[in-house]
């Protein structure tokens, strides 16, 4: 039972890390589009 619980917690932590990583990557993509568009037209 305890082993099972530990495994579930480890899997949850792994999933949380994956979600966070993907969220950060997508957030950076959006932020770079935003800044890129402004810089592209700045003279």
């Amino acid at each position, binding site marked *: 039972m305890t082993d099972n619980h530990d495994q579930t917690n480890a899997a949850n932590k792994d*999933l949380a890390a994956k*979600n*966070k990583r*993907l969220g950060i990557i997508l957030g950076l993509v959006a932020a770079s*589009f*935003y800044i890129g568009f402004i810089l592209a037209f700045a003279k």
Partner: protein
Amino acid sequence: MSEAVAHDDHHDHKPTGIGRWLFSTNHKDIGTMYLVFSLIMFFVGGAMAMVIRAELFQPGLQFVDPQFFNSMTTVHALVMIFGALMPAGVGLANWMIPMMIGAPDMAMPRMNNMSFWILPFAFTLLLLTFFMPGGAPAGGWTMYPPLVLQLGDGFPFLIFAVHFLGVSSIMGAINIIATVFNMRAPGMTFMRLPLFVWTWIITAFLLIASMPVLAGAVTMLLTDKYFGTAFFNAAGGGDPVLFQHIFWFFGHPEVYILVLPSFGIISQVIPTFSRKPLFGYASMVYATASIAFLSFFVWAHHMFTVGMPLTGELFFMYATMSIAVPTGVKIFNWMATMWKGSMTFETPMLFSIGVLFMFSIGGFSGLMMGITPVDFQYHDTYFIVAHFHYVIVPGIIYGVFAGVYYWLPKWTGVMYDEKLGKLHFWLSTISVNVLFFPMHFIGLAGMPRRIPDYNTIFTGWNQIISIGGFAFGLSQLILVWVVIKCARGQGEKATDQVWESAHGLEWTLSSPPPFHSFTTPPQVTDATAHS
């Protein structure tokens, strides 16, 4: 997530009081909040439309001054697009995506809460402008400079409201992508995903690619007004037409951000009530992706009349027409799904068929406008107003209605009142056509859009249009009554399956579903998957 999984494991209870909503991390509660917010905004934006139609009932100035009339057209559009349509789609996504893919919640529940609560804050900023010197935005929802720069104290409020709305949408999009990519149940491969989920993945990528462009454009407006830059100021070496290019580079994908979830909903509803699997599942996925991809190459068809090289006009004309191909694939696939099916016509099916017929009317008038030389005749007339309202009202809002009627018994555990649902459909459908179809005639005859007064020859049609508008507005009260009845538990108890031919994981849950669903991921096979 995983906060969500851990939460489910240890505290399977429903929070109570105001805290349940303020601090909610539950996808169902957040979905409900999005949908309620959307409904409120639908009536706020609708009330503005009523002011417009009351003013236009007769030529001359009746009730409001021209400045306020312009504010009505501008804020009506902003409220409907960003306050009613987008939150409705996100609300349905929040409710249904985790249940459809066998996940316990959205990937980032706290960010989900934040995405929602930014919205009321942003709309407070926007609507406060009505009480400021200079009034509310009145230069059109497209915010073209230099006109928009003439706005008074409300200008920074408008700009920050748009920024916040963009942030909220991007956070929601990231959450949806992370949820679908990382939290699908075992066996739920991408080609087994329900079409509604597919349309939302593609919509989420569109949001991430296009919302920062809008945010960038309005930031440039802000710096032009307050920090001495000249992005769009011709006197300083800038170009006001550049704003139009940037705006519509966002604006056209935005149309698909709104319409693709509606396509996803009717792709769930039509097979259920035709008692057949969706025809051409894979081609539907590829057609949706193609529409999204092509939407980034057609923006200048909104601005043919500003002047551009002939090569540019030809490119944008052909690119625009090419979108009809994947759209046609979808329309024919829906028709093929219904072909020889054992069809029944419950309210969700009626609204879905309404989308099919009337979105096509808007699609065909869109093709007409895509033809550059004739667009010079249509530009800035009521023909354009007719076109995009056919796309938005029966094309998108009807899709949302179809989804609400389809899933309401699952959400509440109570069957909605079918008689009232059908009454809502037929009154809406008659009135929406009385409202928008004659706009084609007066547009072709030369009535310009965004004016509070008009030539007396347009009086008759305008009166008919206004009557259609009031009738459509009143018809929506039926929906409110239907939803209230279900929410109060008045009606026949819904079964878990709800619709005899519905397929998918969401129908394996109880009606209403438990507060925390799929705490143990289900195993998905071909037999249980949608496709």
